[in-house]
């Protein structure tokens, strides 16, 4: 099992061009990142494409990773999510309902990161999210895990898109106020 600190060490080696470290970093993080992008893209071919782009970017940008600002996995997941969301926004023809129930995946191997205890930061976030209305909490979680746009959320929640926007912004503001309190 690799801790965040061990991943930091690998990232430092990757930043210096260490290919073996990069392969180890890939081995330690691929299942987490694939799980994240597959939830958003729901198509294996697109997920494979985003995995390639994501790890290339990680390889090219490892020198910019700052362990004082984020954990390696949070940083890597942010890159992967941004790539995946950019891709689905550009592929509007990909319906969100398409193949919707074929793509429920389960982990088939234990991941070195998966068995980690829930972090204190996650507990604080969940406690703050617990204070939101049930519907707004679901809105934020659907957006995060599926990468849905306001329009997709509006269709799913049968609510006008402007209302969705207001709900999202207020929910996020409430989360911030709660976390910063």
């Amino acid at each position, binding site marked *: 099992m690799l801790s965040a600190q061990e991943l930091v060490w690998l990232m430092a080696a990757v930043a210096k061009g260490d290919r073996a470290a*990069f392969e180890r970093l890939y081995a330690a993080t*691929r299942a987490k990142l*694939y799980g994240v992008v597959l939830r958003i893209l729901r198509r294996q071919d697109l997920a494979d494409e985003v995995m390639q782009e994501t790890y290339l970017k990680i390889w090219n940008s490892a020198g910019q990773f700052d362990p004082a600002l984020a954990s390696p996995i949070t940083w890597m997941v942010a890159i992967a999510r941004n790539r995946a969301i950019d891709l689905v926004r*550009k592929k509007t023809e990909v319906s969100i309902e398409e193949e919707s129930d074929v793509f429920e995946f389960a982990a*088939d191997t234990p991941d070195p990161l998966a068995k980690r205890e829930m972090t204190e930061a996650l507990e604080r976030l969940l*406690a703050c999210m617990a204070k939101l209305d049930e519907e707004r909490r679901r809105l934020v979680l659907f957006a995060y895990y599926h990468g849905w*746009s306001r329009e997709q959320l509006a269709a799913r929640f049968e609510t006008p898109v402007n209302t969705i926007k207001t709900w999202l912004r207020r929910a996020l503001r409430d989360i911030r106020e709660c976390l910063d309190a």
Partner: protein
Amino acid sequence: MTDDTETPDGLAAEYVLGTLGADERAQAEVLIRDDPGFARLVRGWERRLGELNVMVHPVEPPAGTWEPIQARIGDAAPSIAPHPGEAAPAATAGNVVDLSARLGRWRRAAGGLAALAAVLLGLVATQLFNPAALPGLLRPKPIDIANAPVNPGRFVAVLQQNAASPAFILTVDVATRTASVRRVSAEQPAGKSYELWLVSDRFPGPRSLGLVGATEFARPALANYDPATISGATYAVSLEPEGGSPTGAPTGPVLYAGKLVESVPP
């Protein structure tokens, strides 16, 4: 309506959450590149929301995902200086990169870990880095999409008296029937213990899942319950004499209760 949320921070938050359309995403990306203040807001939201990734079930990518990546990194060494337009989301505040400060930070981060890492990398090399060297049964299997079992998901229950005061957080992985519970804000009265109960209409009374320690994670014993019972139950915490209820049923007041909600929506 007059919108008090139409702020740069609101835009940064929605960018990180991922709800913007293509046009607004493009605008946000320009701001990240050109406006250090906005880039800082984005980093703040990545830190706040990024923890949610912990709840995502890992999925092994298909065999053959690594080789194209390996081929594309080619012989070129990665650049320590950022590529223009290739800035990482967490590190885009300044276009001027203070290389010496960055390297110093790396040395500090890396130095303290070197000894541990030297031991660890040997393990990693066999266990993770080279799965093909492992016996067949231990090797990661490529996922079979058509026959993959439905992911039963992870669940979270916030056990509370009211919405403003979550007292315990229970997380449950229904697939493995493992759980952890942690005290968040409840006081620990002297000479008493908190005991966690599973309440289900399938049983005549509450079933004890064990004591919840003062500071440590507790591991509720869920192995004897089936997934439908686990996901449908109410979880409650009562205050008991030190060491737990002497009768096997709650004897003290039930102070906190909650139901599981799916933390990763289906």
